């Protein structure tokens, strides 16, 4: 049977060890006072992790502007605190923890904001994708398909925690051990959330067939 991680085949992501190597170099430059050189080296780290970070933040926040802000803030924070990075920990785990914490902060801020404003109608919040057109990209075609819409609606219904764990495991391709380090919870808890997420998705998608 094909493993889901290989079956999904998302856009190429950076190998885990490469970002840790670059991060160690950035840290060495930063600590030795070569801040400009560290920044230049850090640009490579941004390139390596940016897309993955955007996917995680977007899946969690469901808003492109908030996700953009979260990713930017996470990278800036990582650079300013690079001296505290411990090479024993995979850099991606450390970075993802910072990113997720920033997402949580933004989520809280957004909840506070929404308490005092009238929320738009659901149709305005989540516009349905347009029907497939010849100029659409493969991603857009997938999203505008009936199956794509059902899956998006099902993922939307996942509780926040389950969606986050599912995103980190399936989209960021982190192991349950890495996710437990990222979120600061036990591996068993991660597994429970992941199983519940998959069961719920399976139930929702089976019901709609």
């Amino acid at each position, binding site marked *: 049977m094909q493993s889901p991680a290989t079956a999904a085949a998302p856009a190429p992501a950076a190998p885990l060890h490469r970002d840790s190597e670059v991060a160690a170099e950035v840290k060495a430059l930063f600590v030795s006072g070569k801040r400009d050189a560290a920044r230049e080296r850090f640009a490579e780290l941004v390139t390596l992790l940016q897309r993955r970070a*955007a996917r995680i933040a977007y899946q969690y926040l469901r808003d492109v502007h908030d996700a953009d802000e979260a990713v930017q803030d996470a990278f800036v924070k990582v650079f300013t605190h690079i001296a505290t990075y411990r090479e024993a920990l995979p850099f991606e785990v450390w970075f993802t923890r910072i990113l997720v914490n920033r997402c949580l902060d933004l989520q809280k801020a957004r909840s506070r904001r929404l308490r005092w404003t009238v929320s738009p109608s659901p149709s305005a919040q989540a516009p349905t994708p347009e029907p497939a057109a010849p100029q659409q990209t493969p991603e857009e075609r*997938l999203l505008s398909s009936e199956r794509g819409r059902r899956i998006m609606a099902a993922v939307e219904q996942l509780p926040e925690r389950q969606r986050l764990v599912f995103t980190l495991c399936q989209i960021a391709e982190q192991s349950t051990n890495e996710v437990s380090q990222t979120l600061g919870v036990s591996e068993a808890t991660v597994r429970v959330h992941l199983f519940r997420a998959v069961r719920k998705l399976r139930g929702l998608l089976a019901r709609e067939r």
Partner: protein
Amino acid sequence: MRKSHLSDDRLLEVCLDQASFAAEQQHLESCPACAERGTHLARMLADVTDVTVAEADAAFGADRLAKQRARILQRLELDGRSGRVITFPASHPHGPSLRARPRMRWIAGAAAAGLVIGILADHVAHVVPSRRGAPTQIALQPTGATLQAVSTSMSEEELLGLLEVAIEGTGGASLGPLDDLTPRVWEVAAQ
């Protein structure tokens, strides 16, 4: 080989590759029913992953990612300033800042406290006496009574005269308690 079929949870564990399940893998190879269930589950997970990745990638196209990268590097050069561009009115640099002047906080706090005390005092002054004199209840029923426009420049005697006329008219009985409380014109004139 296992006789019974794999449970849903076990199948999910195998599918998510949580651990090496040699026995379960063997069972999947020899059991078409479980193999089919496993394939369905793996396909569902792959579909969900594909769609969620595509959704995020559609939101973050190459152009947006390039801008984001440029913005990150720019912020690093500027030593990590805020990521979101604030619109002009909110970012006025010369406006009065309470943070810059701690004494302003005390003044603002004192003004707010004074306002609250004033409102409370006004409330007490108007509400408490009216509770003391509450027993008299007057029901005004304007049935049959004609309403007349009263000029603010009317003299006191004219006003009292109009009241007399109103009391003597039909439906004036309801104004009896008010009449009892009101001194007569001649009484006031005699004083």
